[in-house]
């Protein structure tokens, strides 16, 4: 982050529609040149937050700062941010060139300068040869890049992207992820990116704000959010995790001993817990074990009955049930010394002493959360 002020700063922003609270409290800053993602399931308030930064919505309470200036009540056309809309919202009656030139022309920049800037930006998005085409004559990926160029040509303080890849098919989406990163490096503009796809957020962002039901659950780097989630929601939403509820038995300098519901006792290393987790005796906590941290052995303390194995190419995903019928998942790398057990067998779960991580409270549903494991593995 630069010295001076952050590019975007949300100061206790709240948005309410009648009695419905879309955003309870958003309070974070986005630094210069950062690739920042707002991640959460639909209805979590991420798009509303983006609209408040763009100016299409005004906060009910709190303030929005751009480049240190309070813009909470400033209309969109007077804010130096630009948006890439979800379905791109390209002007169908204009050529690609005129679409990109729309912003500079609104600012009454002289036509020669407009021409240079537009052509330059079309080169950046690799659409130099398409200037004369109409949006309808372009593919989805090309339209996406026109939308990018149309926003970036104005050199905004921040570029806001509302689910920009949602309309593309998988292959194209992956290519565009790389393309977006390249463009962002090239222009050095702050990108604020809204997505519900955690794989996408982890792949692309420098930092992520994970949101749920109008609340910002955690803001941090992808690695931190994955390894050190602060809430049960984050632990379950990002990647897949085994969330095992239990009770604190004792805690000292070496670690915390937790008794899980199936009777197994787990020692969680000191410091391996969420900041808000209370370690006092008798407190209800959850132990998180990522599937790739679990090893299946023929002996140990935590007995698991295997119900299913799924071959995934580089690994085998093993699903089982604990003594108290909680579902757990383990990832066994293919070709490792550990042969994956088959369904119907009983094995024991083990892990490295540094693996267990402690979270406050009990989850709504105990056991493994199933999100797309492959995209996480590709990232981390």
């Amino acid at each position, binding site marked *: 982050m630069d010295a001076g002020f952050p590019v975007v700063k949300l100061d206790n922003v709240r948005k309410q529609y009648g009695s419905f609270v879309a955003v309870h409290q958003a309070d974070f800053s986005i630094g210069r040149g950062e690739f920042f993602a707002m991640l959460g399931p639909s209805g979590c308030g991420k798009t509303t937050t983006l609209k408040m930064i763009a100016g299409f919505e005004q906060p009910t309470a709190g303030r929005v700062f751009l480049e240190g200036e309070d813009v909470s009540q400033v209309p969109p056309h007077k804010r130096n941010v*630009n948006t890439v809309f979800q379905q791109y919202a390209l002007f169908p009656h204009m050529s690609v060139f005129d679409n990109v030139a729309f912003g500079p022309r609104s600012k009454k920049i002289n036509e020669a300068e407009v021409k240079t800037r537009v052509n330059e930006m079309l080169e950046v998005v690799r659409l130099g040869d398409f200037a004369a085409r109409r949006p309808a004559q372009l593919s989805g990926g090309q339209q996406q890049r026109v939308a990018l160029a149309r926003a970036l040509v104005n050199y905004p303080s921040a570029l806001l992207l509302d689910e920009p890849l949602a309309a593309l098919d998988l292959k194209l989406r992956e290519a565009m992820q790389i393309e977006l990163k390249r463009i962002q490096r090239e222009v050095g503009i702050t990108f604020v990116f809204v997505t519900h796809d955690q794989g996408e957020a982890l792949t692309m962002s420098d930092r992520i704000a994970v949101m749920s039901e109008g609340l910002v659950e955690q803001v941090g780097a992808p690695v931190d959010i994955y390894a050190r989630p602060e809430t049960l929601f984050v632990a379950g939403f990002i990647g897949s995790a085994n969330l095992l509820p239990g009770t604190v038995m004792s805690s000292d300098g070496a670690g915390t001993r937790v008794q899980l519901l199936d009777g197994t006792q787990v020692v969680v290393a000191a410091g391996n817990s969420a900041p808000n987790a209370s370690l006092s005796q008798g407190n209800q906590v959850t132990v998180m074990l990522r599937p790739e941290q679990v090893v299946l052995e023929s002996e140990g303390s935590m007995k698991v009955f295997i119900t299913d194995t799924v071959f995934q190419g580089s690994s085998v995903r093993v699903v089982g049930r604990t003594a108290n019928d909680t579902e757990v998942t383990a990832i066994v790398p293919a070709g490792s010394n550990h042969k994956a057990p088959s369904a119907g067998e009983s094995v024991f779960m083990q892990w490295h002493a540094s693996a267990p991580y402690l979270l406050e409270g009990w989850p709504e549903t105990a056991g493994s959360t199933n999100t797309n494991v492959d995209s996480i593995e590709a990232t981390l």
Partner: protein
Amino acid sequence: MVLLAVGVVALAAEWVTGGLATGLIAVLIVSVVAIIWIAIMGGLEARRALAPYGLLKPGILWLSLFFLAPLWSMFEMSLSSKKSRFDFFPKFTWDWSNYTKALTDYAPQFGRSFLYASIATILTLLIGYPLAYAIAFRGGKYRTMLLGLVAVPFFTSYLIRTLAWQNLLADAGPVVSIMKTLRLENILEWLHIMDNGRLINTPAAVIGGLTYNFLPFMILPIYVSLEKIDVRLVDASMDLYTTASGAFRRVVLPLSMPGIFAGSLLVFIPAAGDFVNAKFLGSPETTMIGSSIQDQFLVQLNYPLAAAMSFVLMAVITVSVLIYARFMGTEDLA
């Protein structure tokens, strides 16, 4: 298909008569039956190939019989001459004098029709566009109902609506008395809307009637073109530093041009040829070409002149529409 159309026109326009005509009818029937026969007996390929022609057939037959054939006989009539005023069977003689007479004697009526129709078109646009805009963007769940209300006048006959206007604008009618109570006569006189304290039988009344009667034809196509516009385009243009009015001028208006174009045609063309409004709401000084044609056809029984006048009207409208289309550049709009 073209041959079929020519055949029907030939019959209807009496190019062929007697035994030849009977032969032609036989040929036409045989060809139609043959196409149907091939379609039934032929395989899927043949049916697929013939399907478009089959679908065209009813339309072509209908138009040949009731549009092309009468058009041809009208054209023939416009070049015919009468031996005397009471000769009711004019002879086709390539008599172009009907056209010179139509152009010279009726120049004022042609001019007036164009002027009135143009003003009515502009007025319907000025009234209809905001209305269509409001229904399309602010109508919400009442959209369908509001559109229905736009079409409600069609439940009453055109003639009756115009007669109702006659009552409204009459010297003893409500509009005149309200205007007098509000002391607006002087302004209205100054605007040439009122003439010596009268609203009826003025050009303004004729134009008002045209505007009223053709307004829905402007609203509906504009509504259709506005309704298709993605409102996020307005958001996008605001995001790109335009004000609300700039967004309208640069995005919404250009995208609704096809609707404006269609609406203008639907209002201008019938308004230019209209004879009802001029007859009921106008005076001899406001006669439009439509009423002159009607007069020549039905009162004077001068068919050749009336036919020539109709053809001039048709030609002038076609040319002006083509110029308008070029000016609007509609082929450029998706």
